[in-house]
């Protein structure tokens, strides 16, 4: 039947593309994590990874960072999107300014925030000129894991909230205005309109934004290295270390599969948590 084949036809180009450019190299890489040089199946590499003294720290740091950054970003972007929504003039300019970090790579973001937080950086200069401190503070010193963590959080929130914002603004634009007008008629407060109309109607966009952000958050690396040095190992950093310094692509592949597994796990969780029941769709 025409319309039963149609979805598959529409998916075909991208599916074929993914098979050649993603699945094929992916299988080759993932294979290394399970099979020895002589071709035997082994769990040796996963054991080596899991028993390495840095593994747990890296895993926990990665998860903590994602959990600290992503929910904050979603709330902030929601707030920013409603502000934009309520704007009469200057909306284009404000949106442009708020989406500027879209164009900034993580490497550049790391450079920028290092200039702020380092001992001779802008934050210390600022506080000293105001007389808050006598001597510059070493925010990023190895004993200050807490400040390092906060600095990385701020940099990540600064860098990657724009993408959530754009997705949410686009989603909000699609909510029919009649809903709000009706709510207005019944005298619903603005908070009520937000929780009863905006949030439920925004579910698909929220889902998209959260999934993308969570996945990218698990691969956080450049900003962490710029600000944290070696103090805050994360999974992605361990992948680089095993692949390029320790020259062991099997263990690196095992790490990468862990990143993949937690990404898929969280994706499914978000898909399930923010599912749109059938029939409830607009």
């Amino acid at each position, binding site marked *: 039947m025409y319309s039963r084949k149609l979805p598959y036809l529409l998916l075909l180009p991208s599916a074929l593309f993914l098979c050649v450019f993603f699945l094929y190299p992916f299988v080759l890489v993932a294979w290394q994590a399970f099979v020895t040089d002589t071709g035997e199946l082994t769990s040796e590499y996963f054991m080596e990874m899991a028993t390495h003294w840095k593994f747990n720290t890296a895993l926990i740091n990665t998860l903590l960072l994602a959990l600290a950054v992503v929910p904050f970003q979603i709330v902030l972007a929601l707030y920013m999107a409603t502000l934009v929504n309520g704007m009469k003039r200057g909306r284009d300019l404000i949106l442009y300014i708020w989406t500027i970090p879209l164009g900034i790579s993580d490497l550049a973001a790391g450079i920028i925030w290092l200039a702020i937080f380092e001992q001779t950086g802008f934050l210390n200069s600022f506080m000293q000129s105001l007389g808050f401190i006598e001597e510059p503070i070493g925010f990023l010193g*190895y004993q200050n894991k807490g400040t390092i963590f906060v600095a990385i959080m701020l940099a990540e929130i600064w860098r990657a909230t724009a993408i959530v914002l754009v997705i949410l603004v686009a989603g909000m634009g699609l909510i029919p205005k009649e809903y709000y007008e009706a709510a207005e008629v019944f005298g619903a407060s603005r908070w009520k309109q937000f929780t009863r109309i905006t949030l439920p109607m925004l579910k698909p966009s929220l889902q998209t934004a959260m999934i993308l952000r969570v996945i990218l958050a698990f691969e956080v690396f450049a900003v962490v290295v710029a600000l944290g*040095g070696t*103090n805050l190992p994360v999974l992605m950093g361990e992948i680089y270390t095993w692949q390029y310094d320790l*020259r062991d692509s099997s263990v690196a592949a095992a790490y990468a599969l862990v990143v993949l597994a937690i990404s898929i796990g969280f994706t499914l969780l978000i898909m399930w948590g923010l599912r749109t029941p059938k029939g409830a769709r607009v």
Partner: protein
Amino acid sequence: MIVRKSLLTLALAAGLSALGASAASAEVLFWSTQGNTVEESQAMRDQVLSGFEAGADFQGSESGPWITRIEAELQAGSGKIGVLGSLHGSFISLSDGLADLSDMDTTGVNSTFLELGKLGTDEQKYIPWMQATYIMAANKKALEHLPDGADVMALTYDQLIDWAKNMADATGSNKFGFPAGPKGLKHRFFQGYLYPSYTNSMVSQFRSPEAEEAWNKFKELWSYTNPGSTNFSFMQEQLLTDEVWVAFDHTARLADAFNQRPDDFIGFPAPAGPTGRGFMPVVVGIGVPSTAPDMEGAKELISYLSQPETQIATLRATNFFPVVDVELPDDMPPAVQLSGAAIAAMSGADDANPGLLPVGLGDLGGKFNAVYVDSFERIVLGGQDVREVLDDQADTLRALMEEAGAPCWAPDVASDGPCPVE
């Protein structure tokens, strides 16, 4: 729809130029992890390689892409890279893919380094290209805090600790800096400086009582070390910002400080311990992958790079010293003069105890380095018990040496079979 039309034209143009690309270059592609910063690359192209008649295309790269690209070319069996330039350590794991350069004329090239370039095989896997070493640098403001009786050109580790303490007491902040950041080369410090100075060994005495003392000394030094050190990879930056006054680093990574403010800084030898003044060279080599499109051209480029004039031009461009016998002209930049004096004092010292770079480790070179870095992170940063960590890491080290079957190298006494970890 004008926009879409012009986009299409762009895409077409892009596709077409992609097709035309492969025929273009006959230049030798020089793929290097050294000289990869924008400034150095510019200097490599304009001042070093411009004299090479056949033409060379210098492409600097970080080590990740560098390894990935050459591995891909070796696996695919064909490629574009003509000459590889990198640290001794990066060549180790590529050994099988490197062409034999034994037939090249290497008169005048440092023979110890040439031997290293064989990577424990019978073939000349790479030709030494340039060298550096680790020295210390100090802001002249620090000199007044030197402990009594200490000669800055012949320091001991104990005096360095006192000095760091004096500076911390006087200024209220820790003024000693150590490149423990992600790109810092700290493993070489432990392998080539700390261990030889305390145990006269790099491998066999790894868990000895002397090694325990060495780590405890280092912990003491660390308590007067700038806590930002875990972010420092290029001590020239912190020397220039005055964040630190005294630092240990690679000559090329101190050069900027020396060159920008030559009157404010001095260079001096690494300190000595009970078993002498341990130090170690950094060797950068040039090799040819077996997949090089133009083997002859690649070899010509290597000969060109080994000429004395080219070596001097390279020194100006990258701050790495020549590996062939050359007279340095008098007009060298301040960094060369300041670090040159420190190197001369270090290698000429009565208690000099030079070590060699690891050889014969194959793919395990990185894991060998990790033993030292992990020990540092666990003992010094993690505050774990020295004895326990050393025992634990010694097991790893022993397994590595046995797997690689690598015999001992200086300063360890030569061994039959794998270097034992006692």
